[in-house]
């Protein structure tokens, strides 16, 4: 038995080392004196200062944050509707198509979705004279692919609860709307929160779809990072990576702590 525990521990140690060693090195080299990210030349904060004064990067980060906030919110509303329908409305005309459409963006290759949405915006620009490519088109694209994830989280959560609570409320005379607000919504609130967070992260991280629909003026953070990284390694990107990892770790630890507290 102890032999098997040893094997399991080795497997996990190897797996986690594979996942975290590259990230750890990126973080370490964000404090490197040298411009070369492969040669250690002593501790320095100069790349941190450089990044915090990098206007283009900060503008891009601000644009990405605004898009992520707006698109995650709309994706959560639409995903809530879609997930609710999938879990609670077993029959209506077009349900198979509806279910297919809700899941499809999750498995659609991003380059395909990117080119298709760009063609839509080009078409609407010719026929309707807009929308101009930028904030709005990026947000629409992000809502479209992230609402899928919210819908799946909501549907799974609703499937875990049986309908009897909602039916009891309605038998006692509550209208469907009151039932939804006082029974269903509190039940699925955690799923909505994690769905929103997922949509927010997906939006903040998206490169390919964004690159297609962004137009000439708008540059999101991943687009900036990509164009900088294509030219080779850059210590400022290491700094940015360190910040991103710190935020993600902080958010994950906080949410785990909150869940544990509730239990």
């Amino acid at each position: 038995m102890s032999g098997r525990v040893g094997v399991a521990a080795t497997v996990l140690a190897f797996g986690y080392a594979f996942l975290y060693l590259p990230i750890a090195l990126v973080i370490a080299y964000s404090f490197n004196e040298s411009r070369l990210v492969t040669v250690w030349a002593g501790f320095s904060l100069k790349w941190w200062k450089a990044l915090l004064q990098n206007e283009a990067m900060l503008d891009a980060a601000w644009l990405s944050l605004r898009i992520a906030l707006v698109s995650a919110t709309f994706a959560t509303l639409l995903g809530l509707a879609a997930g609710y329908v999938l879990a609670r409305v077993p029959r209506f005309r077009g349900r198979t198509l509806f279910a297919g459409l809700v899941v499809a963006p999750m498995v659609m290759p991003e380059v395909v979705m990117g080119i298709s949405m760009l063609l839509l915006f080009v078409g609407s620009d010719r026929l309707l004279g807009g929308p101009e490519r930028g904030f709005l088109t990026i947000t629409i694209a992000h809502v479209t692919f992230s609402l899928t994830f919210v819908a799946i989280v909501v549907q799974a959560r609703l499937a875990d609860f049986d309908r009897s609570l909602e039916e009891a409320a309605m038998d006692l005379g509550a209208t469907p709307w009151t039932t939804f607000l006082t029974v269903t919504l509190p039940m699925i609130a955690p799923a909505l929160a994690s769905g929103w967070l997922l949509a927010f992260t997906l939006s903040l991280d998206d490169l390919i779809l964004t690159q297609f629909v962004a137009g000439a003026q708008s540059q999101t953070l991943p687009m900036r990072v990509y164009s900088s990284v294509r030219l080779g390694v850059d210590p400022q990107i290491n700094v940015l990576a360190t910040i991103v990892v710190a935020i993600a770790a902080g958010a994950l630890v906080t949410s785990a702590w909150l869940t544990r507290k509730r239990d």
Partner: protein
Amino acid sequence: MSSRSVFLARSQPMRLVIALPFLWLGVFFLLPLGLVLGIALGTNSPDSVPPVELGVDLASFRLLFTDDLYLAAWLSSLRIAAISTAVTLLLGYPMAYAIARAAPRRRPLLLMLVMLPFWTSFLIRIYAWMGLLSENGILNQVLRGSGLVADPGTILGTEWAIYLGIVYAYLPFMVLPLYAALEKLDWSLLEAASDLGARPSTAFLTVTLPLSLPGIVAGCLLVFIPAVGEFVIPDLLGGTQTLMIGKVLWDEFFTNSDWPLASAVAICLLVLLVGPILLFQRQQQRSLERRS
């Protein structure tokens, strides 16, 4: 109960709840796919804006299936995706298994550690390997320093780097569905098998493996489907000699401005993946129905 549901579906507000996401996905997902097909049938006309002349012309599709370059790109995309998926499964299965068999109070932390990289930026995780794998990168410094290899060669820019990048980036997508399947497994079945004289390997092959099959299928599809159309990984880690179809689409669109050809690539990619995508959807639906 179902009569109430039908009643619900016909009620005015519920119609709106159904219609909103339906309309959104119809306009912003389904309609665009139709446009891609329309443009794929057009011809490239570099002088007009946008650079397309509408019509019904299969030239773009014909080019995709006759030109050696494109055929090679399709084949290498499939090969790279398939091999990477297999390697990810071989690495992810033992991890998921070890987590599922760990003490229950440790599992949330172990799972969180698998999830954390997913919550950080995809681009940055790929970037991390650029510094590791380059000619004077950290890996080669370690290899030279250890004295084992005098001239290790460079991994960055080869197909090996692409495999490594895909396995690294998609490992969490493999581990999570595998864990979900293994966590539900009734371990007393394994004890029963061994009581009845089955060796551990036999018990694994006849009990554990079949019961975790839904997780294996889901995990493999979640890795394979995006890997076939991958763009960032071959672009940043792979060299110029490795062609992948996602990169071809990107280059035809952005570099050559050949919209019909890029659209034809997109349509072919969809047709190629429609089998795996439908399989994934059916499985997703089935597992949710089992829960409710």
